[in-house]
Structures are given as C-alpha cells and as structure tokens.
C-alpha cells in the first residue's frame, strides 16, 4: 500500500473523509441512544450520513426574500471554517488559538445564516446565536487556564506536556467540565440548543434545505468531531493519544452526551446562557490550583 506522506494533500483529504464518516456515525449513534432512552426504536446509526447524502440530491430552492450571494456563501464559510479547524487541530496538531478563532467565526456565520434568508424564524435563531455567543466564556477560560499550566497553546506541545506530567484533567477538572458543557451545547437536541430550538421551527436553519443543507451538515459533522477531539486531547491527552483510543473514547463520550440530551429538557434562552456562565465561573476557581 502506498502511504501518503504526512502533511501532503492526499493525507489531509483522507483524514477529512475519515473524520466526516466517523463523525456522521457518531451523530447517528447519538440519535439512536436518545431514542432508546425515550423508549422508541429510533433511526439506524447511519441515518445521519444518509440524511447528509440525501440532501445532496434534493432540489435546492432559494427563497425570494433571501439575500442571494450571502445565502449560499455563508454556509460555505461555515463548513470552510470547520475544515480549517479540522486541518489545524487533529491533522497538524497546530495552535489551539486558531481553533478558538474558528469556533468564534462559526458563531458569526450561524448568525449570518439566520439573517441571509428572510424568514422570521431564522432571524430569531440568529438573534439567539448572538445571545448564546456570550455564553462561550468556557472557551476563553479553558485555554487560558491550559496556557498558564503548560505555557503553550500549540496542541502537540500540550500533548507532550500531558504525556510527561499526566493528563490536565487531574489539574483542571472544573475547566474540563466547563469545556464539556461547551461540547454539550454543540450536540443536537441538547438542553442549551436555543439556536436551533424547535420552538422556532428549526432556528437558523429553517429555510436551508437541498444541497445547501447537505453542505451545512458536512460542516457540522466535522465541527462535532473537532470539538470532541479538542476536549479529549486537551484534558485527557496523557491517556488517549492514538487514533484508536481517541476514536473509541469519542464513542464513549457520545453515549454520555446522548444520555444527557435525552434526559434534560430544553432550557429557556436566558437560563441557558446563565447556566453556561455559571460553569465558566466555576472553571475560574481552578485558578487557585495552578
């Protein structure tokens, strides 16, 4: 077998395809677990991937009220952001700050997706995206604490530090929990998912269907993979640092996320933001242990 050199285009493309398929299966598993807990048979595990491919062959209609170039471009930007985050994170083990930037830009593009189509539901969703962006405090707190502990934000150095000194979870448990809450707020059907809540139909993606929804789901699957990977690598990098262990642990974390999502109700927008802030403040207590 010809092995592509690390860092070559083929290498990264293959990694991208693997992450996409695996992330899709994870999200399918997540749905299956929710259904099982709620006493339904639930969709098969491939359902999320089938959905994504199905949307690729569905007709795309663009609403007349939408602002056309933005309607398509912002979705492409959303998935480009996650492709970049994936390449910088799991593939190249580059700076963590770029992933944080990608996350922030992803929030902005969520807002843009909501505004681009003229529907009131998507506008409501995009307003909530701005509101929930204020709840991303754990995203600032966790890397700051990691930096003060390890004196680096480059992911490969963080992993090396953890291999030498033990996982950061032992030193920064509260920051890890705050990051877990952040991860939870990105999974479908979560209690903090005010952005795509069913009370506003589907939130910011109400008007997006057809091919453009497929591209959006492609980005979201990659995003889920990247966030799971970041959580595991930054806080458990000492234990899980080979692809096999990381992928198996991702399945485990997805099962836990499924349990949480199935058993919690959707929280009202302001409460959702407040609870995430509480976890971020709790993480700050970790400063005392550094």
């Amino acid at each position, binding site marked *: 077998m010809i092995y592509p050199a690390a860092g070559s285009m083929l290498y990264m493309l293959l990694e991208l395809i693997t992450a996409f398929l695996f992330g899709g299966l994870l999200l399918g598993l997540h749905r299956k677990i929710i259904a099982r807990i709620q006493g339904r048979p639930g969709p098969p595990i491939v359902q999320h991937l089938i959905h994504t491919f199905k*949307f690729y*062959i569905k007709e795309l209609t663009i609403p007349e009220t939408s602002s056309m170039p933005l309607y398509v471009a912002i979705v*492409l*930007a959303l998935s*480009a952001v996650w492709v*970049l985050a994936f390449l910088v994170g799991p593939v190249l083990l580059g700076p963590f700050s770029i992933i944080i930037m990608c996350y922030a830009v992803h929030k902005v593009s969520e807002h843009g997706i909501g505004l681009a189509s003229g529907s009131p539901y998507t506008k409501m969703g995009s307003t909530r995206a701005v509101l929930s962006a204020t709840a991303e405090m754990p995203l600032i707190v966790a890397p700051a604490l990691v930096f003060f502990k390890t004196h680096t934000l480059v992911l490969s150095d963080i992993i090396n530090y953890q291999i030498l000194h033990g996982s950061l979870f032992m030193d920064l448990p509260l920051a890890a929990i705050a990051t877990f809450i952040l991860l939870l707020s990105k999974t479908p059907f979560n209690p903090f998912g005010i952005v795509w809540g069913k009370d506003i139909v589907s939130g910011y993606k109400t008007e997006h269907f057809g*091919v453009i929804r497929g591209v959006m789901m492609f980005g979201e699957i990659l995003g889920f993979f990247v966030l799971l990977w970041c959580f595991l690598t930054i806080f458990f990098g000492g234990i899980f640092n080979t692809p096999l262990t990381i992928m198996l642990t991702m399945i485990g974390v997805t099962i836990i996320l499924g349990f949480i999502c199935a058993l919690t109700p959707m929280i009202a927008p302001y409460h959702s933001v407040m609870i995430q802030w509480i976890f971020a403040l709790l993480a700050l207590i970790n400063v005392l242990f550094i």
Partner: protein
Amino acid sequence: MKIQKQTKNRILAVLTTLPILIGIILNTPLVISVAILTFFVPPSTYYLGLVLMALPKSKKEEDEREKITFTGY
C-alpha cells in the same frame, strides 16, 4: 435556460475540484495545501451536489421531466 444553468454548474464543479486534484498530483507544500482544502472543499461539495441534484434519479423521473404538466398562468 435550464440546460445553461446545468452546464454552468458543471463547469464550476470542475473548476472547484481541479485545485484539489492538482494539489494531490503536484504534492503542494503544507500551507498551500491547507489553503486549497479550506477554500475549495466546501464549494466543490456544493457544486458537485448541484450537479447531482439536477440529474434525473430514475427512468420514470426522466419521462416526467419531458412532459409538460403545467402550462402556466
């Protein structure tokens, strides 16, 4: 008009997929590869999707498209 749109989408699909293929063949340096993948993967999936979307899925659908069912207002 419809055929023109399909050809336009096909051209754009080829144009957005080409840099990735060229990158694989020429083995471009790391930074350029990352840039190409970031900029061209989402549009290429989008335009490939548009091309796939417009293709008839079955013989029946192909016949349906030939028929004029609605003559307009």
